[in-house]
């Protein structure tokens, strides 16, 4: 086990020098691409993803996303009454340490697509756009753990940029525990925001919550862990989501303020100083 957990109990510092409840640096931008309806770029540590949102538009629009079969991503709520959310994820070959190419038919990717699609569909007001498609295309440029969380956050930001009405941000992060499933020690500490190495060695889960509430939209745990650990990890994860939401919110507001300053958009009249453009 290359990850030395013994040093953690001494200094309470993780491999990358963080404390247990520290997030990695999150750097995000919205409106990164002029051509898209909505776009975003998000870094969580070394995990870097880009997102482009097209729509709401007529299904099978000019780009004919989904028509070609393999290009089709997961769809949620495609039935006539509300907009379908189509997510397609492209994992760049150069994103991980060893170059590994994943086909679009990869089941793991399909699962991610379907998760993001249905998580966002629950927050987006899709009923406002019947018979249309919101297509979200995600590109993974670099992977260092918490991939699903980064993808959800980027997709949320891009949807905000695209001006699609939504209930609240869907913010996500990961949480883990210092104990492995074998060790039954009670002294195990929960950890926030796992990097790739920690994800490999320690049990962890991905949580996404809606806005500031404690309501969990996505909860994915893929490792073996004692039931008693769950509560601690979940609590840390939900708390982390709130921190992430605050960061995302700041990104959006900063961009909005900048656009008002530049005169790109008119300042709205609202209760608060600035609402989402």
């Amino acid at each position, binding site marked *: 086990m290359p990850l030395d957990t013994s040093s953690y109990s001494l200094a309470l510092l993780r491999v990358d020098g963080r404390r247990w409840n520290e997030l990695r640096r999150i750097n995000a931008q919205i409106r990164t691409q002029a051509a898209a309806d909505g776009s975003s770029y998000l870094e969580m540590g070394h995990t870097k993803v880009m997102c482009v949102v097209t729509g709401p538009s007529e299904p099978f629009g000019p780009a004919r996303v989904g028509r070609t079969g393999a290009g089709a991503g997961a769809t949620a709520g495609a039935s006539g009454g509300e907009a379908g959310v189509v997510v397609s994820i492209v994992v760049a070959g150069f994103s991980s340490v060893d170059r590994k190419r994943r086909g679009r038919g990869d089941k793991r990717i*399909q699962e991610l697509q379907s998760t993001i699609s249905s*998580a966002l569909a629950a927050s987006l007001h899709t009923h406002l756009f019947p018979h249309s498609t919101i297509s979200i295309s995600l590109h993974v440029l670099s992977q260092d753990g918490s991939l699903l969380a980064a993808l959800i956050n980027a997709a949320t930001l891009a949807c905000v940029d695209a001006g699609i009405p939504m209930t609240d941000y869907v913010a996500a992060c990961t949480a883990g525990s210092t104990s492995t*499933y074998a060790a039954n020690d009670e002294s195990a500490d929960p950890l926030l925001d796992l990097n790739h190495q920690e994800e490999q060695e320690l049990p962890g889960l991905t949580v996404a*919550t809606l806005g500031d*509430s404690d309501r969990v939209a996505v909860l994915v745990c893929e490792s073996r862990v*004692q039931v008693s650990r769950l509560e601690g990890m979940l609590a840390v994860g939900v708390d982390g989501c709130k921190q992430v939401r605050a960061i995302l919110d700041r990104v959006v507001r900063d961009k909005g303020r900048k656009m008002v300053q530049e005169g790109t958009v008119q300042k709205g009249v609202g209760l608060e100083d600035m609402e989402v453009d």
Partner: protein
Amino acid sequence: MPREAEPSLNEKQFVIQALQSNLRLDGRKFDQYRPLEVSFGEQYGVVEVKLGKTRILAKASAEVTVPYVDRPLDGIFTIATELSPMASPAFEVNRPTETEVLLSRLLEKTVRRSGALDTESLCLVAGQKCWHVRVDVHILSHDGDLIDAACFATVASLRHFRKPDTSIENGVLTVYTPAEREPVPLGWLHSPFCVTWSFYGDEGEIAVLDATWLEEAVRVGSCTISLNRHGEICQIAKLGGTPVEALSLLQCTSIALVRVKEFSALLDKKLAEDAKRRDRGGLLAELSAENDR
């Protein structure tokens, strides 16, 4: 691609209103499963599981192959799921639907990645020969809660399965036929089971176990929790859907653990019954005693 007929608005509303007044259409309690029937086939590793009208057949098999280059010391273990048009017209052959992908991913995570089967014990000659254990899960009819039933069937078939006995002498690998030596069970570490909750209501405040097809069609979200009877979580998957309070998810997990312990006991009982049925006149004991010598 034919689409499954959606339930009508009236039906949907009826189901939801019934749930809101604490009623299910078939009169079950919210956390109650439909009766689970398990029957084993003549061959080892063939299991049919019935959960209400949902029927699943799982068959385990094993063959000797070359291990993967990057894992020379491990055997190969695959789970193949097939949702044939027989179960529902919405399924097509050779075109995996989202349901199928999610089902196979969940089985994969629950059974394979949690290390239920000891893949190292499948290795025969390092880097050259190993067992390839394969479970084929066929969905015969689909009336909701496929995941729980399929997972139960997979675990049952693997635990029921016996692979041919082998020996290595002077580098020569011999695989014995069942006539020569009684087949041996797989190296089994723990038995994970899936428990799927379906959520209803605007805030997902109503949670229901073992939803039927109709109930699944109107749910706003679901969460599949895989556990073993030792209280270890093997995976949790709440893949989107309407957000649910974190506390109620924790509650769901603890109820799930109870159900899993029941499943585990049920499977143990059924396996013991089947073993007894096969072991007429204590032939097995005799044979294994012979093998020991």
